[in-house]
């Protein structure tokens, strides 16, 4: 019931925030913040009952009792659809990330939303609820439902409170996600039908579907259906083009949630569904997936350098970073998988912070165009220092979370496909180029003496401090995170262990 409450609290908070706008336009943001923090507190209280030994149990994917939390209620029994939520180490990390970044997102749009504040916060909370649902749902029908639930409020956030080109951006975002979501729905339905024809019962349950794996050519196409949906969300090359537009036009909180959390649902889906449900097919597909990952890393980095728009630059850097996740998942290696999980979390922090900086600049200067900025450090040293920190995090400075992630991915990948790893490592160089270029263009150079902007205040510094401390912690002592994810990944490795004999990966070896 904990898991259901986690989602319900956010949904209810959204409704209350919406209604509260009538009392006072500034009330909703307090309600939103309170709701998220309450949700976080509620979750932590329940989590504190868990011991490390409990977390360390390798969850058996087909035995719900080995999961940390599990909740199941009948929904549409005729078609085997149930309201089934469960949590293991991976989803635990994702839920924590969602709630923390949710609070950060509320803080990041503290002042810049002036119209229809109640509805805005409501959409924000509903998106978070949808994301939580995605991270927790283990019924494929329910998963798809939440997949859509998180999409619509996000669309509204971009379409209503976005910047100048919001119509195009929000529509593009919606269509990309929707079309890919439909492919996933088709794949889900086909999977259930195949399962029905072999076992005689309809079931959308993850556990049932895991037990009866589909084989043959059809499985490959089903895998592709899932893969495309998650790749679009990730976003992976060449389905990333919605991201720069959506990010650029979204309000700050929207960007934070989009970059920090929503993208992770794609990565989560890959780990949770694509690989366990279709291990053989995913393995056969992994050279292509790795190719897409590397292409994303390099392509995103090259395009990031070419941008004038601060937010677009950060958006392309996201494309580049998420390429590492794709590599990590498809490297079929425990180290690389851990790296992918780390990257999901670290990237959530670093990119969210960069988007917040972009938002602050937009709020102060009313432009995101870096050719109109120069020497902002002079006026806003605190913001400059914070930006420098996150730029360094984004280029993978050792000691910060992103480095741990990228290093683990690459070191794991190197054992499998050294040449792919070598090309992907070029991403480290090009990341340095665009990150530093961003700092140069916005914060360094000749300051414009005529204009003065307020530096970061207490609220902003507090939010940023949370993220900075988080990244340093991830960079220097990532062990708790690794330990939490380890059992899940172990079980994943066991699951695919039967198919990853060295001979099959031989094509990738030198």
């Amino acid at each position: 019931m904990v898991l259901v409450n986690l989602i319900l609290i956010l949904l209810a908070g959204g409704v209350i925030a919406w209604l509260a706008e009538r009392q006072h336009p500034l009330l909703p943001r307090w309600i939103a913040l309170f709701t998220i923090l309450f949700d976080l507190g509620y979750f932590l209280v329940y989590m504190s009952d868990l011991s490390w030994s409990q977390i360390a149990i390798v969850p058996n994917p087909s035995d719900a009792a080995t999961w940390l939390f599990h909740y199941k209620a009948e929904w549409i029994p005729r078609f085997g659809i149930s309201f089934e939520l469960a949590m293991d180490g991976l989803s635990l990390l994702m839920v924590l990330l969602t709630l923390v970044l949710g609070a950060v997102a509320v803080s990041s749009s503290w002042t810049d939303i002036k119209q229809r504040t109640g509805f805005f916060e409501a959409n924000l909370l509903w998106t978070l609820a949808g994301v939580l649902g995605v991270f927790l749902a283990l019924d494929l029908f329910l998963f798809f439902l939440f997949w859509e639930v998180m999409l619509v409020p996000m669309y509204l956030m971009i379409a209503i409170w976005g910047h100048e080109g919001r119509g195009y951006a929000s529509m593009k975002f919606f269509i990309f996600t929707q079309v890919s979501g439909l492919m996933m729905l088709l794949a889900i339905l086909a999977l259930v039908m195949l399962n029905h024809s072999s076992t005689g019962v309809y079931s959308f349950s993850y556990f049932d579907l895991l037990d009866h794996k589909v084989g043959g050519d059809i499985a490959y196409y089903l895998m592709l259906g899932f893969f495309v949906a998650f790749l679009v969300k990730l976003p992976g090359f060449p389905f990333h083009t919605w991201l720069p537009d959506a990010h650029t036009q979204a309000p700050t909180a929207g960007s934070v949630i989009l970059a920090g959390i929503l993208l992770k649902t794609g990565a989560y889906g890959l780990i949770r569904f694509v690989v366990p449900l279709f291990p053989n097919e995913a393995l056969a597909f992994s050279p292509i997936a790795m190719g897409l990952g590397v292409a994303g890393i390099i392509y995103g980095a090259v395009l990031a350098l070419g941008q004038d728009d601060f937010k677009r630059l950060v958006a392309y850097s996201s494309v580049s970073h998420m390429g590492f996740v794709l590599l990590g998942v498809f490297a079929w290696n425990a180290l690389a998988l851990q790296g992918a999980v780390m990257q999901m979390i670290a990237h959530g922090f670093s990119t969210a912070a960069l988007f917040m900086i972009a938002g602050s600049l937009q709020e102060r200067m009313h432009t995101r165009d870096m050719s109109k900025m120069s020497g902002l450090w002079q006026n806003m040293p605190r913001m400059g220092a914070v930006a420098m920190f996150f730029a360094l995090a984004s280029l993978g400075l050792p000691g910060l979370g992103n480095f741990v992630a990228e290093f683990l991915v690459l070191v794991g990948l190197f054992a499998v496909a050294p040449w792919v790893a070598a090309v992907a490592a070029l991403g480290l160089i090009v990341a340095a180029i665009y990150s530093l270029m961003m700092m140069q263009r916005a914060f360094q150079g000749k300051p414009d003496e005529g204009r003065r902007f307020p530096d970061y205040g207490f609220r902003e510094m507090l939010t940023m401090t949370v993220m900075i401390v988080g990244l340093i912690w991830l960079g220097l002592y990532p062990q708790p995170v690794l330990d939490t994810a380890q059992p899940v990944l172990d079980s994943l490795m066991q699951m695919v262990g039967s198919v990853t004999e060295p001979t099959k990966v031989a094509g990738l070896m030198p």
Partner: protein
Amino acid sequence: MLKLLPLIPLFPLVSSVLLMVTTGKMPKRLVAILGAGSVGLSALTTLLVGLAFMESGQPHHQVLWTWMQVGTFSPDIAFYLDGLTLVMMSVITGVGFLIHLFSTEFMEEDVSYSRYFAYLNMFVFAMLILVMADNLLLLYLGWEGVGVCSYLLVGFWYQNPDNGLAARKAFVVTRVGDTAMALGLFLLFTELGTLDIQPMAAAANSQWQVGDTLPVLACLLLLGGAVGKSAQLPLHTWLPDAMAGPTPVSALIHAATMVTAGVYLIARTHELFLLAPPAMLAVALVGLITSLMAAFTALVQHDIKRILAYSTISQIGYMFLALGVGAWTAGIFHLMTHAFFKALLFLGAGAVIHCLHHEHNIFKMGGLRTRLPVAFWSFLIGSAALAALPFTSGFFSKDMILLQAYELPGAGPWLWAGGLLGALLTAIYSFRLVFVVFFGEAKTEPDRQPGLRMAVPLTLLCVLAIIGGWFALPLADVFPVAGEHHPSHLIEGISIAIPLIGLVLAYLIFLSGQLKIDGLVNSSLGRTLKKFWFSGWAMDLLYDRLLVRPYKGLAYMLRGEWVDVIYNSIVKVCQMLFVGLSHTQTGRLRWYATSMVFGVIVVIALLLGVI
């Protein structure tokens, strides 16, 4: 006492964080005390730890915590102390402290005083981590950390975009090397299963034979990292530009410590390199070629700091040469003496620049011998050591390198000869600097004299630059013992004579003017060569044309996102279909009726076909 080891990097870290958090609100006096004092404390602690280490004689290993552990991959945050580490730590904290002290006066008038010390302390911290690291991953942390601090300090005066460019160049070029090194780390971990340096060396010795391909590959990748950080060919182009930073920074980072990290890395992993003779040869050749190229370039530069920068590249080339021929101790020895005299030279240059309205061009200086005596004596002693005049510290270390290079079977004499040419050039350009700047007629008047906080470090470094050659380094347990060498007196004599010849040549050309080289210089070949050398052998141009511009062009070309063309064309097709189909909606009843009839005909025809 050895347990105090973690305190050494902790002092500068704490100081740096404090300075960052207070964001310039601290009074300058306190900043100076905190900034320089923390490094001073580190130096003292190093002394204590060093004494304790000398007593025990055993390498000391200290684990703080496990950094991350995934399967067998479990690097620790752990320190390793042996003779090599101790030498490096002493140089970093000792020279570092002197330079911090110098900076407190040099940077007095800067508005970002506390930011400067925050960065500088952070650098000391990162550098200490680099040398103290027990495993290559932690070393990599320090490695990148010093790179970032170097970036921040080169671009310290960020208002000038040129400084920003230099800083970015420094970071990106070294990052190229770093990435090669990261690949080396991947390879080593994949093959040997650990990144802890000592077990790794043991594993390498048991798994690999001399002459195997893998160690060569791994060593070449590590060498890639080393040439990046240590500004060797082909990644040396960032160092001259990095002189855009404050002069004490150049002294600390770009002369004494960070740029020698590559030397340290190779020395630290020497057991791997011993398994890979081709890689060793590559190290030696890179060192020699770099050293000669940089020396030629230094001959024709105008900017006082650029001359010193090229000289640094050249001297590190010597260290690489030493490592390449297996003269590990000599290489580290030269690293240390170089740290002393090059820091001295840079600080001397800093003093000159400081007192001369930030003038960098040596041909606008002159006659400063009497006007800035402290700077003059620093420069004189520093140049003497740099040129390896007998009985200075540089003489001992360079002599050792050249002799051991000569001993190398096969290519030895050639390497030695190249080294001698380099030594000659070194003597010429270093005394060219001294003669042009401090002798002759005055062109610019100094507006002040260096104060006490500048003079004291200079004096101390002068002393070190002279007596540094008599230090005995505790490296015997670290490196394999070099064979006894018995150089002939002729070889030794030539080694001593060459710098003196260079000194005399420089005197004749630049001071007395008795040796006329105008004709040579002004000939078309001379001019071309001068231009070529002045541009640093046109390497910048080459990279600009070959890499920078194509990459920028690519980014600019792609910025419009060509992938979107695919999706836009889908949209276009839909729109075309829409427009086309909307034409069928004529609003005419007859047209609709006719189309319906047509449809009925088709349907019936189909049915008939089926029936």
